[in-house]
């Protein structure tokens, strides 16, 4: 296993690599099918800059997510995008690293309001497949200087370069959280209710529906008085849909981490659609265990091993990723046509030898 302690070492290792490399942070999200000698980023660890007054944090890619979140908490700040942890659904242990979060563009329920990981990411440093050290973006939250390789690196699963450092815009902490729950809705009604909530001015920061518990949950966050007020107003918006209860449940980890799928043996898929198509996904996957997040736009579906999920969703504009299990077909949605040509072209430019997480997204 290669474990560089500095960016220069990382560069030398990639440049000198004789064959394919499998890039690993904390190893908590073993999604995808890459093989090769393991290159661990955990040696590139540590917060190099944190300016609470500028809402900015910069850290080595191998820095544990937990360390970043703890440092932010001291100043009553947070990462806006609420990164999920895959430990529960994948049964993995260990520390998720911030570089892994970026490489996989990991977000949580707050994605619908605060954006994905890529929306808070403001700078990267990485080593491409040639061993070149490249920087892009920086540590300011508005930056349009040159092409935005920051976004390109987010969610590229290590196939374009090995991240060495990442910079984020952060947000102030949350004083109060409140969950408005509607019970007894079927999936179609639940998504309609969530759409009404998300289309209101009350700044909903989480919108999930669990068909098994029959609960549709809308989250409000902010200053205490404001949350109380918006809880009342949002309840009024939701009452036409069903029985409404307001709870001070602050814990959205069950939704964020897909805890109900823990220990399951079926294939677990993560399907992104436009929210109003969410129930159609559920309907097309007969017998699936489902969880709707992002107002219906993110469907978690546990299905029998080997189910052809993409086949079942044929004709629907969607993006399906196999997060756990055997599946049918590739783990990631295949790019087709022009997009495949462009993506292959980019990979050939950044990694001409094809050694970085080869085959990962293919």
């Amino acid at each position, binding site marked *: 296993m290669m474990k560089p302690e500095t960016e220069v070492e990382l560069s030398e290792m990639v440049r000198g690599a004789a064959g394919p490399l499998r890039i690993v942070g904390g190893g908590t999200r073993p999604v995808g099918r890459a093989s090769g000698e393991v290159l661990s980023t955990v040696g590139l660890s540590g917060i190099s800059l944190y300016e609470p007054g500028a809402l900015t944090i910069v850290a080595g890619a191998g820095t544990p997510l937990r360390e970043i979140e703890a440092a932010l908490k001291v100043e009553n700040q947070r990462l806006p995008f609420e990164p999920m942890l895959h430990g529960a659904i994948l049964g993995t242990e260990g520390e998720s690293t911030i570089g892994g979060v970026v490489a996989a563009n990991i977000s949580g329920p707050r994605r619908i309001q605060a954006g994905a990981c890529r929306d808070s990411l403001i700078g990267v440093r990485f080593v491409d497949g040639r061993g070149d050290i490249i920087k892009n973006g920086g540590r300011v939250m508005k930056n*349009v200087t040159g*092409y935005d390789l920051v976004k390109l690196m*987010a969610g590229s699963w290590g196939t374009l370069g090995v991240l060495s450092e990442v910079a984020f815009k952060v947000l102030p902490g949350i*004083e109060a959280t409140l969950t408005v729950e509607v019970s007894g809705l079927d999936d179609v009604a639940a998504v309609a209710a969530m759409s009404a909530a998300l289309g209101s001015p009350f700044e909903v920061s989480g919108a999930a529906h669990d068909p098994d518990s029959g609960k549709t949950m809308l989250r409000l966050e902010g200053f205490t008085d404001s949350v109380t007020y918006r809880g009342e*107003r949002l309840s009024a918006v939701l009452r036409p849909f069903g029985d409404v209860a307001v709870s001070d449940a602050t814990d959205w980890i069950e939704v964020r981490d897909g805890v109900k799928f823990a220990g399951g043996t079926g294939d677990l898929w993560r399907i992104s659609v436009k929210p109003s198509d969410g129930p159609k996904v559920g309907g097309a996957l007969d017998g699936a265990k489902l969880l709707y997040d992002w107002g219906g736009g993110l469907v978690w579906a546990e299905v029998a091993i080997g189910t052809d999920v993409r086949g079942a969703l044929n004709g629907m504009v969607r993006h399906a*990723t196999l997060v756990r299990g055997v599946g049918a077909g590739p783990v990631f949605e295949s790019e087709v046509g022009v997009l495949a040509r462009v993506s292959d072209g*980019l990979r050939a430019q950044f990694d001409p030898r094809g050694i970085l997480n080869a085959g990962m997204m293919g």
Partner: protein
Amino acid sequence: MEMPMPDARVLSRKADIVARLQGVLPMDAVIHEPHETRVYECDALTAYKCPPLAAVLPSSTQEVSAVLKVCHAMGVPVVPRGSGTSLAGGALPTADCVILGVARLNGVIETNYADRYIRVQSGRTNLSVTGAVEEMDFFYAPDPSSQLACAIAGNVAMNSGGAHCLKYGVTTNNLLGVTMVLMDGTVTEIGGGHLDAGGLDLLGLICGSEGQLGVVTEATLRILHKPEGARPALVGFDSNEVAGACVSDIIKAGVLPVAIEFMDQKVLEVVEKHAKAGYPECEAVLIIEVEGSEAEIDMQLGLIREIAAKHNPVEFRESASEEESAAIWLGRKSAFGAMGQINDYMCLDGTIPVSELPYVLKRIRQFSEEYGLDVGNVFHAGDGNMHPLILFDANKDGDLEKCEAMGAEILKLCVEVGGCLTGEHGVGVEKRDLMHAQFDAVDMEAQLRVKDVFDPAWLLNPSKVFPLGVTQARRIAAE
């Protein structure tokens, strides 16, 4: 400012090129007479002008594709143009180029309130996107100052921001999908109504690529319900440094206003004279806007008042009515126009870490004295996006050059303190030659390789963003 020599072979085939373009477009969509092409000789960076070989105004994605196929086959450079409001010269032509204007692509294709998006053609103006969803109390958040005129195509090309992006983000954070035509005429769809489309984040790469990777003809944009209300407060300080410190404290306290705008003494004097906004006489004014219900607004402004009080403000004026809100914003909104009335100006938009505000403002004042040119500062303070306006006299020999030299010093300073050359206007031609200050050769090469993939012939807006010396080999090889 240098532009590459026009390609003589292209110039000599003008008649042929025009005829081929007329073969794929209606007659009135191909503009080639010299007295007509002059309309397209510059954008809002008016210091540089050059009429194009021709301009075309396609009305559909298919027509855009047909135009690009012709230009690709004939080796003609293409400069895409939204509404021509770029302050960075993003749409500045070369004599051998075809300007591809998207002004006729201005329709709304789909509004979807349940899924909270709108799909528009890219020539539609920013403000008219909000106009299309206003009846349902929705809006499109990014609000560049030129929003009345600027096109979504240009917003996507430059990844435009605006006063309210502290809360809502810039274009890239509100863009869900595009239809894009590559230089060879291939039409492609990226993203759409669903979030985080699979594969590499090409959408994020396209946004802010200054029309060098493809021509965006349609865009799916996130729309939001309007807040229940919004209210600004105006706070005056007797020093820039204290105003800067107050901004930092507000952000640290956990309040997230939708906008924090900063104006310095020079700007205050000028807007007072021209807009009569009734601003206090002091060294710096902040306009801070918060949103929500009446009670939420009261609460947030209360907190802000408490924080500001610790910095001994000269005045804290909270709006009590629509009229007062308009009056508070009047000076800020008329600042650029007012500055333009007293002189020509160059508007920079370097971004710096908020913590460096006091230092950078001090250094800008020193530059102003050294160069003998007045500077006004009016900017988005919450995110460190500066807008120094350097005043100069375009009719005075050497003044423009002096102004550009001073601008370069300011932008290099922005990079030095940890910031960047441009926060929302784009590089264009204006900051092209300063890219070395921010990126080393390897950083830049990585970006050029991206263009190689999308536009191997280097025909799409080829003389922008990167120093000509850096792109020369590629441009020549492609010819």
